[in-house]
């Protein structure tokens, strides 16, 4: 319950406070958000499977964000930024969809 409240509170704070993100990081923010969402959905599914572990959640969250931002940054340097960004979004979307499907199976059958 508390984690969900923290997430919603964070979104509200983001709308209200509108913190200024350093200009260099601005392009990577959306993809980092999607990568973090993937970690969150994985955590929710693990919670429903009763195998949740804080350590794994924190590690997967941080590594997802870093790897996604790194891949997009590398793509920008190589000149294939939009293609690599599309690839990252596709993969993250796949993982999010399959985790949500597992969550759905839990919620509507158990």
């Amino acid at each position, binding site marked *: 319950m*508390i*984690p969900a409240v*923290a*997430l*919603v*509170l*964070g*979104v*509200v*704070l*983001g*709308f*209200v*406070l*509108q*913190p200024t*993100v350093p200009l260099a990081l*601005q392009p990577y*923010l*959306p993809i*980092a*958000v999607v990568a*973090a*969402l993937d*970690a*969150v959905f*994985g*955590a929710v*599914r*693990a919670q429903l*499977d*009763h*195998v*949740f*572990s*804080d*350590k*794994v*959640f*924190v*590690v*997967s*969250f*941080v590594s997802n964000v870093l790897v996604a931002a790194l891949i997009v940054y590398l793509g920008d340097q190589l000149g294939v930024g939009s293609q690599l960004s599309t690839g990252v979004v596709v993969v993250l979307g*796949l*993982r999010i969809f*399959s*985790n949500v*499907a*597992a969550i759905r199976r839990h919620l509507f059958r158990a």
Partner: protein
Amino acid sequence: MPQSWSSVAKRPDASMSLLREVVEGADDGYREAAAVHGTSVRPWWGRLIAVLLLLGLGVAAGQAIVAARMAAPEVATGEQRLRTEVDRQTAGTDELALSVNRIQDEVSALQTSSGALGARQDELDRLQVAAGTGAVHGSGILITLDDAPPPSADAGVGDPGPLQADDGRIHDRELQAVVNRLWAAGAEAISINGLRLTPRTAIREAGQAVLVDFRPLSPPYSIRAVGDADALQAELVASRIGRSLQTYVSLLGISYDVSSSDNLALPAGSNPRLRAVEVAGPPAAGSTTPAPGTENP
């Protein structure tokens, strides 16, 4: 094979890991961690860090959404500004082209009236007609070509309509073939939708528009050709492109019409760059002896 690989239990579908991940969902290591540590261990700091990360994620998501919303109208106004600028510059260029033509006409009139060219005036007139730099007035033929109307929404299922949406369009190929046939039949000057064709004018197609002299034209296309009206018409009707266009009228629904006219006025085409100028001698002299002139690159 390294020792560590054989210690992991091999699943029969180990090579399909991507498909497996798509179908069953990725497991970030929760199961392995639970198998090793058990799920009862929950350090207090783990919970705190997780909550802080989620808070940070929320703030980042909110900020990203706000930033995306704020950027949208700026993109639209930027586009609008560019479009206005393009329109303004195009209008300016058109005005300049008109004034160039007007001044060119004045120059030609002065040349003719001063008689400085003498016998070469006729040659100049003939060259101006051929090069497209002089306006032409005379009799000739007028050809009108228009795209087929788009397939109507209430076309019946059994209607043999065009296979693709743009089959009934007039392409640059058709215009090129008609114009080439007219030149071969002895046309002296040709214009399409008021654009005079010079020896350097290209008829091309880019995307959905036909470009004549790099200017996009939209149908219907009126091709005016000054010359012997009967000869032009006869040759066009008998030619391959004439017969093809006639077939397309019934097959695809384009409109194609050829008529002769006694009163065609073709404007001058875009002027070539001035390369050399010679000052003619004083008109009083019997034969003009041009003084060494200035080169104007």
